């Protein structure tokens, strides 16, 4: 049976979904066809965790539960243990003490990304259980010939594909790093959709590039929970020279467009 399908921002064509506009960007979350399926059971439960690197104890006696549908932002200053915590939550390393239980399959994308240079991106996705991803032409190359942003898109395509097919625990370390404005907004939309389908997401965002509104912030290293990452969306008309266009944007995307020479002629709250 052929299900309706449109390629998303990574070029992934996931049957049964209708995500992304023709230019793969700027489709607001409220236009999605999927319906929320929130559940209260914790997808991931961490008890009395001690996270350490060598002799340095970064986090001690940390307990954390993440439920389906949650978007959890892990915040804190440099070196406070955000990435180390995500490595433990993702299952990359065992905790020094304590335990992590996860009832859903996990997918992880690290911050400093390097994929095998000689391996074709499509082959890589096959290794991480995302062989069904239909990559766009510009990503059908060996990983060593992809730009940082393209590499990030390939790395994210696997977890997003898994989250599109079944509820998944997504552990994403700076997932917006290296992406262009359209892709950042589209990634935010993908994550919201994944959460609505029952996945749980935990992420870091040190640069303020996030394009989702987290449901919760976990502050580490003495940081006080500030404003949640992600911002309200507005519908605005942009002009540049003789060009004129209506777009739905959030703050991060808007800032990028203003730097790119656009000016706002009028705007309104997005529904």
């Amino acid at each position, binding site marked *: 049976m052929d299900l309706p399908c449109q390629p998303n921002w990574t070029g992934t064509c996931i049957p049964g979904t209708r995500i992304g506009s023709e230019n793969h960007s700027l489709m607001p979350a409220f236009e999605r066809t999927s319906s929320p399926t929130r559940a209260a059971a914790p997808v991931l439960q961490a008890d009395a965790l001690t996270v350490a690197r060598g002799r340095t104890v970064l986090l001690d006696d940390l307990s954390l539960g993440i439920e389906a549908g949650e978007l959890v932002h892990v915040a804190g200053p440099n070196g406070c243990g955000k990435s180390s915590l995500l490595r433990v939550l993702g299952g990359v390393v065992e905790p020094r003490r304590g335990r992590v239980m996860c009832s859903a399959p996990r997918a992880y994308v690290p911050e400093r990304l390097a994929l095998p240079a000689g391996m074709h991106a499509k*082959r890589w996705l096959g290794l991480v259980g995302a062989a069904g991803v239909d990559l766009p032409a510009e990503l059908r190359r060996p990983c060593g010939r992809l730009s940082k942003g393209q590499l990030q898109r390939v790395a994210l395509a696997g977890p997003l594909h898994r989250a599109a097919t079944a509820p998944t625990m997504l552990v994403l370390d700076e997932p917006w790093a290296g992406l262009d404005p359209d892709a950042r907004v589209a990634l935010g939309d993908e994550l919201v959709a994944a959460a609505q389908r029952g996945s749980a997401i935990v992420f870091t965002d040190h640069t303020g590039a996030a394009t989702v509104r987290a449901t919760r912030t976990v502050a580490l290293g003495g940081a006080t929970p500030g404003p949640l990452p992600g911002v309200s969306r507005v519908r605005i008309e942009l002009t540049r020279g003789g060009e004129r266009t209506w777009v739905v944007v959030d703050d991060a995307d808007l800032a990028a467009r203003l730097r790119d020479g656009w000016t706002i002629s009028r705007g309104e709250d997005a529904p």
Partner: protein
Amino acid sequence: MTIARNRVSVALSGRRLLAPLTLLLFTVIGVYAYRPNVVQESFAVTTVLCAAFCAWLVIAIEREVPDSADAILTVAAGGAVRAWRGRVVLVVLVAVPVTVLFLAWPTATGAFKRAPGLGDLTGAALAHLAGGVFGGCLALVVTPPARVATAFAVTIGVVIGSVALAKVAAPIAGPGGVAKAMSKAPDDGVTAALLLAAAITLAEAGLLAYAARWLQRWRG
């Protein structure tokens, strides 16, 4: 199994395996270039070589996987513990064909004074597998994130040290001890000393594998 297969797939996409594989072939051919050879002593020598080459091959495979790709593959395979088991499986998957090569080449090409019997081949297979698994598990300890030069230095040092230790404490000397027991075995026979040395070497390999897991957790 998945993590072992994925690592081999990644390794085959790069070039790091070319050097050890090429030198392995030259070594197997070179060891038996002068004929005829004594069965037990020859297998004893290749037992030690098997340990060194398995270590080199495992280092090459491990180094071919970037840290971040390793993290993604680890999670995709089900987590750190499963990935660790997968790396141990990888060691065995490397040791088996290297063992087969060290046994099959001289046997098939008639490099020995006499045709090796079933007892010879059984003992040699056991010795080579024990040595190969020991070398592979040693490689798991030293790489990554140790630098390649450090990994090689430690590996070569341990293999040479095991040969030296075999002179005074053969049963616990790892590949060197197994090689010594192999060289003392009678024609077409498997001795208790060989079985004991192989068992102890495999146990030591298990300890090394566990040390690799502990180190990974300690590094964070």
